[in-house]
Structure formats: structure tokens, C-alpha cells
């Protein structure tokens, strides 16, 4: 049998969470060759979750969220330079500064960026922000600290809701605009969306659902916004939280199956080319990857989850230096957390992969509960609010495709054990993009719509 490929040249594009964890795993598992990390940002890898939480609250400065390096990497860091192309035949990454970097194996970990406000002139006004990088967070935190009169948050997904929460905690007036029926419904469905809406209002958020922002107003400097229902507000800050765009443009000419939904790869993180043929030397991990998951009927999933970036990077790295049968699949059950309005929300599985939901523990009234989601009679997800300790149990139910609804009898079951429709709206109805995208054809409502060319 062939020796394991422990040497040669490995290049990682995207020097953030997934890139760093992959590089560490490569070294931990004995890779001795040359290792190059290419990152567009000038900062060494840092952590993003605190950006919309502690940083906006002013508790942690934006440049203090650096990711700890768990071991010496002995790597060549090319920071502040963007990869602009990939030559898959010559096996080179082409850099925007004109240089190119040859590789034997490549890991694509370019993640996502904030979806910008669609009108460039309006987006360019002073006071209009997005939140993805530590620079974004530093700028926004400074403006929040200066005490604006009102903040408009466009989009009530996780990021938008966390921003609104931070504003309220700072005592700022905030308006949240969401095209969908409630905050977070794109990720959690109707029942918890309703809870989120109540909670935001209880915390003094001016929450407007079922409307869109039609224009940002101002003359070089933001002064207000128009809504689709004809109303308008004064605001001197707008944070655009419309979800994320996958950083795949640089792969346009590469012949890989890379597009707006991400880089398609197999369960072992190997990228597919545009013909659906799996490559053997190009891998993908983190927010940019789109991969099949057996627990969700082999749907291709795109996840924007911290834990997924770590786990997938570790699998990708392992597989980059392992041959055939030693390779591992990335089967981790998706999981993420959020904190907002004093709540700790945690999710396992894919709540949008569901048709029903039941409150299995606790109650909506106490805002302390576990909601369990099912699809066609099996458990596919669970979301806890201030009650994370039993998620482990539900993760096991998801992994073993246990029947839905789950067996009753929880010691703290308070609400009716009768499931209700999970009311996951079509993603088209949302302002914010979903943080989990099911990009195949299931559950039944989520068909790909082919638009005729105009």
C-alpha cells in the first residue's frame, strides 16, 4: 500500500477559523511538508462570534478576539493578499498581487462575506454598516458608543437579532425590519420565531415584520429609511444584516463546482469539478463548503456555524494526508449557538429540515425550553433556549433517526406533547439569508425555481 502523503506542498486559501484549524490538524497528524496560508485579511485568524456580542457591547475590543493557536504551525503566512484565481491543471493559486503559489494539495476555506445593501450609492453612505470582519465590528462599536439616536437593523436573522440585542443592552433605540413573519424564523421556524418576536418587543425593539426597507435616505450621511408599507423612520445608523455571500468568485474559471451556494464537495471534503467528478487534491471546509449529509437524506448543506467550520476543517485536513480507506467522512451533527436578549439559544440538527415541532421540555412562557423538530416522523433537530444541558440527548436521537415526536416523560415537560407544524418559511420570504441552507430538493416545499433568462 502507498505511504500516506505526509509531505509535499499544501496551500490553504482563507486564513480564518477553518483555515487555521485545518493547518493545526495537518501538523498534529504529522504533515511535514510546506504549508502556506493565504488570507485576504491582514489580521491573523480571529473569532467572529464575539463581534456581534461582546464587541458591540464594548466589553471586548474588536482586535482582541484572536483565535488561540494550539500548536506551532511552521507555516508561510501570506496575509493581506487575496487569491484571485486557481489553475487546476498547473496546480497554482493565482494571487491578486500577481504572484502564484504552487500546490500539491489545496484547501479552500474562503468562507463568506456580508451580503451588501443592493444599492451601492445608499450602501456607501456614512452610517451604513455590515458586520463580518473585526474592522466592521470596531467601526460599528465605536459608532454605537457615540450614542446614535436610532439604529436600524435590516434583517432579523441571528446576526441582526444579536445586533439589536446589543443595541438595547446599550440603551439605544433600535428598529428591526424583517421581510419574513418573525425574527429567526428562517432558522427556527414559526413557534420559536414568535417567541423571538415577543422577546424583542419586550426588550423595547421597534420590530417590524412583513415589511422591507425600500430605501436608505440621506445625503452622504444616513438620516432615515423608507419601508414598503409606506412608513419611514429617522435613523443615523443602519446595519445591513441580510445574510452572507459565499466567497467563490475567485474560483469562477477553475472548473470546480463552485457557485453562489458554495463549493460542492463530498462527505470527505473533496471538491467536485463542474462535471461532478470528485477531485483528489482540492478540498473545501467551513462556511464556503456545501456537502451532502446522510442524516438529512444526503441533502447538500451549507452551514454558517462555528462548530462546523472546526469539525469539517479537521476532517478535510485528515483526508488531505490520508489515502483511500483511511479517509473519514464529515458526519458531525450540525450545531450552533447564539446569545441575545438574555437568552442562550442552542441548536443541534437542522431545524429547517422539518415539518413538525413539539415543545418537549420547559415552556415558551418561561423562555426556557427545548423544541424538538421532526421530518416525516423522525427527529431531525432540537433547539434549546436557556436549557442547553439536555441537547446531548437530542443529538443522540437525531443521530439514531429516532421516531418523532420523541417519547414523552421529560421531568420538566410543561406544554402539550402534541406537535404543531414547524412553519419554516420559504427562504425567499426572508430578508436575511438562512444560516443553514438546504440546497437540494427536500423537504418538499423547497424546490429549486428555474428563472427564465431575461
Amino acid at each position, binding site marked *: 500500500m502507498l505511504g500516506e502523503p505526509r509531505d509535499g506542498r499544501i496551500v490553504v486559501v482563507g486564513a480564518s477559523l477553518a483555515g487555521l484549524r485545518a493547518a493545526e490538524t495537518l501538523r498534529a497528524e504529522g504533515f511535514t511538508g510546506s504549508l502556506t496560508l493565504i488570507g485576504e485579511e491582514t489580521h491573523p485568524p480571529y473569532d467572529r462570534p464575539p463581534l456581534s456580542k461582546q464587541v458591540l457591547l464594548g466589553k471586548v475590543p474588536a482586535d482582541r478576539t484572536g483565535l488561540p493557536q494550539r500548536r506551532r504551525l511552521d507555516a508561510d503566512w501570506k496575509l493581506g493578499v487575496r487569491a484571485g484565481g486557481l489553475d487546476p491543471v498547473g496546480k497554482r493559486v493565482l494571487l491578486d498581487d500577481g504572484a502564484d503559489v504552487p500546490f500539491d494539495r489545496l484547501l479552500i476555506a474562503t468562507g463568506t462575506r456580508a451580503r451588501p445593501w443592493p444599492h451601492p450609492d445608499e450602501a456607501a453612505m456614512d452610517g451604513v454598516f455590515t458586520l463580518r470582519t473585526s474592522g466592521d465590528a470596531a467601526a460599528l462599536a465605536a459608532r454605537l458608543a457615540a450614542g446614535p439616536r436610532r439604529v436600524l437593523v435590516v434583517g432579523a436573522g441571528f446576526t441582526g437579532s444579536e445586533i439589536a440585542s446589543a443595541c438595547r443592552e446599550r440603551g439605544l433605540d433600535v428598529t428591526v425590519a424583517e421581510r419574513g413573519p418573525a425574527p429567526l424564523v428562517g432558522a427556527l421556524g414559526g413557534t420559536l420565531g414568535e417567541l423571538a418576536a415577543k422577546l424583542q418587543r419586550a426588550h423595547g425593539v421597534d420590530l417590524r415584520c412583513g415589511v422591507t426597507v425600500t430605501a436608505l435616505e440621506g445625503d452622504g450621511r444616513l438620516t432615515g429609511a423608507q419601508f414598503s408599507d409606506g412608513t419611514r423612520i429617522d435613523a443615523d445608523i443602519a446595519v445591513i444584516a441580510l445574510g452572507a455571500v459565499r466567497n467563490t468568485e475567485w474560483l469562477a474559471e477553475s472548473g470546480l463546482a463552485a457557485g453562489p451556494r458554495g463549493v460542492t464537495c463530498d462527505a470527505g471534503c473533496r471538491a467536485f469539478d463542474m462535471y461532478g467528478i470528485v477531485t483528489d487534491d482540492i478540498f473545501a471546509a467551513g462556511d464556503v463548503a456545501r456537502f451532502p449529509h446522510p442524516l438529512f437524506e444526503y441533502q447538500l448543506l451549507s452551514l454558517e456555524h462555528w462548530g462546523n467550520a472546526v469539525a469539517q476543517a479537521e476532517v478535510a485536513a485528515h483526508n488531505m494526508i490520508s489515502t483511500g480507506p483511511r479517509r473519514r467522512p464529515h458526519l458531525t451533527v450540525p450545531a450552533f449557538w447564539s446569545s441575545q436578549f438574555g437568552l442562550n439559544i442552542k441548536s443541534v440538527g437542522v431545524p429547517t429540515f422539518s415539518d413538525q415541532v413539539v415543545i418537549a421540555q*420547559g415552556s415558551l412562557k418561561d423562555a426556557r425550553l427545548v423544541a424538538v423538530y421532526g421530518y416525516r416522523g423522525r427527529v431531525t433537530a432540537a433547539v434549546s433556549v436557556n436549557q442547553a*444541558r439536555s441537547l446531548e440527548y437530542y443529538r443522540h436521537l437525531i443521530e439514531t433517526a429516532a421516531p418523532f415526536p420523541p417519547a414523552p*416523560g421529560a421531568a420538566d415537560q410543561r406544554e402539550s406533547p402534541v406537535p404543531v407544524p414547524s412553519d419554516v418559511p420559504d427562504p425567499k420570504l426572508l430578508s436575511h439569508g438562512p444560516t443553514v441552507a438546504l440546497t437540494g430538493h427536500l423537504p418538499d416545499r423547497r424546490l429549486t425555481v428555474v428563472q427564465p433568462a431575461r
Partner: protein
Amino acid sequence: MAADTLFHRITDYAHRADPYPLYAELRENGVARQDDGSYLVGTYHDIAALLHDPRISSDRRHRTVPDGAAGTDEGVPPSFIGLDDPEHHRLRGLAMRSFGPPHTPDRIDGMHEDITRIVRDLIAGFEGKERIDVVDDFAYPLPVTVICRLLGVPTEDEPRFRLWSDAIVAGFDPTPGDDPEERQRAGTDARKQMALYLGELAEGRRGHPSGDMLSAFVNDAGPEGQLTPLETMATAVLLLIAGHETTVNLITNGMLTLLRHPDALERLCREPELMPLAVEELLRYEPPVQMLPQRTPLADIEVAGRTIPKGSPLILMLAAGNRDPQRFVDPDRFDPAREDNQHLGFGSGVHSCFGAPLARLETQIALHELLRHLDTPRLIEDPPEYRRSPVLRGPRHLLIGRGGV
């Protein structure tokens, strides 16, 4: 015959010094039903699953099999350790308010110096002694002093609550067969007296906050409210007992284990920064809480292909799970630098040990200072004499000699 059941042998004092072969037997046999209708679970993954299973109650009043210890505590309500959510959560949260984050994040960290000073004073007391009893001279007085300061209990009263504490611990000793009634009555009685004593201390501080937990209980109300006087009593008893009965054993088991593994001991002297990992390994290898004897399923639950009927006493053998080869590489080896060490020493799930950060800190400091100050310690008696309880397992005395002989 009843006396031959596995649980009988595990609780039999004759096996106290080394119960681990029995635990291996338990793991091999899967879920073990005992003659009295209780069930033992000893494999890591099964225990972990049950600790997270919301259908497992910690409230003994849900048992349908006759249970002498249930419902006998008229007067003092169960402490949160014996309750389920949401009551458990409320009480634990109220107690945590004055113990840990988010409201009191520095309480434990802030004790670092205090604990170090107490440890050094105790070690200074070894002066001139050739033989030390690690238990009486060190591992017992340390956590008692610490928990007394934390709660605000005068250390002079130690002899009183030592008697109560012994009786309470004996009261929940689940040793089958030997008639438990008398012990349980004595335990209940002791619990009541300790509760009255602590309740009185707490009440005396109402309006005169003095920075300790008892006075926080009666003076600091949060948005979630405040402990009632009865709840204060039950919680204070729990914290006082749990705050020292377990740490004594952790420190003593720790010293014993290190003395039995001179390589590890020497390595820790050279690399003191390994101590936090070593303490985790001790919690895995010789956990002071060997089992959780008071769980009850609220529905029929399948474990390892067996159904445990609703209402049966369920005993989770944490110490057996900690040595499960399905989970830990080479589990019977003591490795002070072990990585991937998610042991069950503090339990897991909603009831996972409230005092873990304190126990860790005390033990890390205690062992670190002992290693620094005892030159070439050696065991005088191995195995040492053990305490009676199979639940809170540890040596009654641990005699060591100093100086190379």
C-alpha cells in the same frame, strides 16, 4: 442468594479498597438488575446518555419501588440535588448567584490566595512530625475551612457539624440488606439539626450582609427572587456537606494515587503546570463520588437492550464509566497528562457538580503544595483504611512518612 448480587459485593466493605474489578464485571454484564428491583449502569456511554436524558428524575419521590429514604425529611425540603427542573434550575440558579458567573464571577478565583494560605498553614503544622495523616492533618481541615469561609460558618462549630455530616452521609449509604431504617432516621435527624443551625446563622445576617454566601442568600434578591428561609436551610446543608465530604476524598485519593505512581509524582514535581490535567485524571481514575444512587426513570427506558421500568431505582456507577475501555484508552492506567479526558467525576447534564470549580482549585493547590513541601513522602500503609461509604469513597486515614528512609 441476595447477598451475592453484584451491588452487594460493590457495597461490601471488603471491596472498598479496590472495587474496580467489580466495576469491570458490571460493564461486561450490561445493565444489571438487582433483586430489590434497582438497576445498575456502568458503561460510559450509557451513563452519559442517562445523565442527559430528560426522562431521568433526580427526585426520589418518583420511585415506585419502596424507598425508605424518600419523603422522610418532613420539615426540611429536599435540596436542589434531589429535585428536577424547573424547581432544580430555580434553586440552583439562586444559589449560583452568589457563587459563580455571571453574577459573582470572581468568588472562586478570588479564593486562590486564601486557599494557598490555608494550605501552607496546614503544611506548617507538619513541622517536626515524622508521620502525617493526610486525612486528619490536611485533606479534611482544608475543605472544611474553605467551605466555612465561603458560607460564613464559624470554624469553631466544626465538631458539631462533623457529627451531623457523618450521620447524613451514612443515612444515604445504599448498602442493601443491612437494615437501613435506623441509619436513615439518624441521617434525617442530623439533617434537620444542621438545617436549623445554618438557618439560624443565615437569619442572623439578614440586614447585616457580611460578604459570605449565607448572608448573600438572605440579603441579595435578584430578578428571579430569593431563597425562602426553608430553601436557604436546605441549600446551605447541601453546600456545607458537598463542599467538604467530596474534596477530602479527592485530595486523599489524589495523594494516595501519586504515591502509588512515583513516576507521575516525580513528573508533577518537575512539571507543576501539568497539575490541572493531573487533577482531571484523578477525577477519572479515583473519583470521590463513585456512583449516583438516586436517579429514577419517569418512563420505561431502554438501555443497552434492556428496559428499565418507570419508577425503578437507577444507580449510575460513575467510577465504572470512568474506566470504560470503550471510551478511554488504557483506562486502568493513571496518566497525569491524559488528553481527551471527559470523565464523569463531576457527573454531567443538569446536575453536574455545582462546586466543581472550587473542588478543582482546592485540589490543584493542595497537591501542588504538598508535592513542593514533602520531601520523599512514602506510604506507610497500603491499602489504607477506607471510610465506610461506597458512594463517597476515600481513605479514612492515610499515613505517610517523610524523608527518605
